[in-house]
């Protein structure tokens, strides 16, 4: 078995005095799509924020290609190849659509993704390239957010609740595009409330409950009962 591209060892994460993650262990293989599910407040977003460097942790608790990045700065981690599509899209309102994408490309990493390949993936963005990002619909904004993350040609891409607040038909489109996005050997971590969507695109799944891993398994093999137990606690 090759070394995992990303490994968490006993990850503890804090917001001030409040502990949000307790000893989370996780391994992610290169090219794998991993789903992370769990109830609100289970620690899913905290996990992604820890990996991306927005929360500082003990260095050795997060290894990326064998390197300790737990205490790394977010911009350094981004440049090293971990990109995030943040919850709620969080586009830069004073930047146009194209400028938002260009900011994503600032890391200067080589790879298949550039403005023209993003526009090929999401043709509507090409039409709207000079508009203010705030003038787009929710689904189109999500495309910009995804495109912005892809522009850095990351090795790992973190999706935080990409279906949140979007109409079902839009969610379907975005999930339909996902295989194209991560098809090129990219590793993806998908945090998602919509369990069936998450299971359908991922190879493996982790469930978090109150800051701890409550379930780990192959997405196609875990049963409904196991998931609901992992979600709401053993009863």
């Amino acid at each position, binding site marked *: 078995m090759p070394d995992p591209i990303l490994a968490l060892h006993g990850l503890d994460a804090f917001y001030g005095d409040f502990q949000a993650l307790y000893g989370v262990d996780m391994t992610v293989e290169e090219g794998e799509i991993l789903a992370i599910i769990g109830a609100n407040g289970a620690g899913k977003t905290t996990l992604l924020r820890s990996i991306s460097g927005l929360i500082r942790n003990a260095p050795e608790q997060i290894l990326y290609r064998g390197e300790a990045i737990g205490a790394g700065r977010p*911009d350094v981690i981004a440049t090293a190849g971990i*990109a995030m599509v943040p919850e709620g899209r969080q586009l830069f309102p004073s930047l146009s659509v194209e*400028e938002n994408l260009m900011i994503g490309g600032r890391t200067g990493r080589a790879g298949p993704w550039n403005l023209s390949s993003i526009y090929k993936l999401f043709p509507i963005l090409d039409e709207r390239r000079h508009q203010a990002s705030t003038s787009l619909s929710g689904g189109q904004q999500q495309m910009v957010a995804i495109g912005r993350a892809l522009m850095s040609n990351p090795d790992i891409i973190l999706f935080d609740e990409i279906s949140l607040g979007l109409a079902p038909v839009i969610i379907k489109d975005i999930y339909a595009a996902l295989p194209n996005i991560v098809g090129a050997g990219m590793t993806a971590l998908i945090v998602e409330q919509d369990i069936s969507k998450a299971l359908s695109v991922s190879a493996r799944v982790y469930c978090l409950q109150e800051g701890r891993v409550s379930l780990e398994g192959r997405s196609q093999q875990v049963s409904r009962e196991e998931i609901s137990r992992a979600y709401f606690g053993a009863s």
Partner: protein
Amino acid sequence: MEWVNAVVQGTLLGGLYALFAAGLSLIFGVMRLVNIAHGDLIVLSAYLGLTTTVALGVHPLLALVLVLPVMALFGYVLQRVLLNQTLGQDILPPLLVTFGLSVIIQNALLETYTADPQKMDAGALETASVSVGPLALGVLPLLTFGIAIVVIAGLQFIFYRTALGRAFRATSDNQEVAQLMGLNKAHIFGLAMALALAVTAIAGVLLGIRTSFDPSIGGARLIFGFEAVIIGGLGNLWGTLIGGILLGVSQTVGAAISPGFQLLAGHITFLVILALRPNGLFPRISG
């Protein structure tokens, strides 16, 4: 005719005030920092210009070749070493730290240059004027006004047409996500302060050619710049030029009414605008 003259001279003076304001506006726009020491940094630039002209025997405008990069570098280091540590939710640390900085700069200047007023010698430039109809326009005020337009146009270009400007705007919008895009916040803020102090260097040298200066005048320059920013509207660079002009015209018209009324008239204009249009005339961002 006296009134027309006052308005024209005031407009040109507004160019200098716009230069005071542009640096303040820029750093507030990028990192929501209000630098109480801004006026003292303008005065520091004037003194650096003075020392350069005296030591090298060059024209004050040529001294900018040295003063501008020195101030820009100082700005970058100041931001990285000191000011970045003060940024956060609490407004007290940046205010009080820059206030302390203001006192330090002022007294360091006093210690080095004494309290005696100084002036830079710009030769014929100081008195040269051109006649436009019945008005005599000083070449230096005209030049200052032209430089202000060029500087603001340049800042506008950097902000809206370059990768650095995109980084400034993205960081200003959302610091967290900007970092996720690989932007080093500390470095971006350092560059913003470097740019602001480069503008400050220009403002300081032009101030030092125009009038005599001493270490205590920084506070008033901060206030003029601040008033121009608020009148023009937060976050609007061209607005600072309008604000500077309104302030300059108020002062010269006030002085034409009564010499003691000059500064008061400027402040009153500011307060009237604040009462009628609290967000300034052309606001871009909310404070």
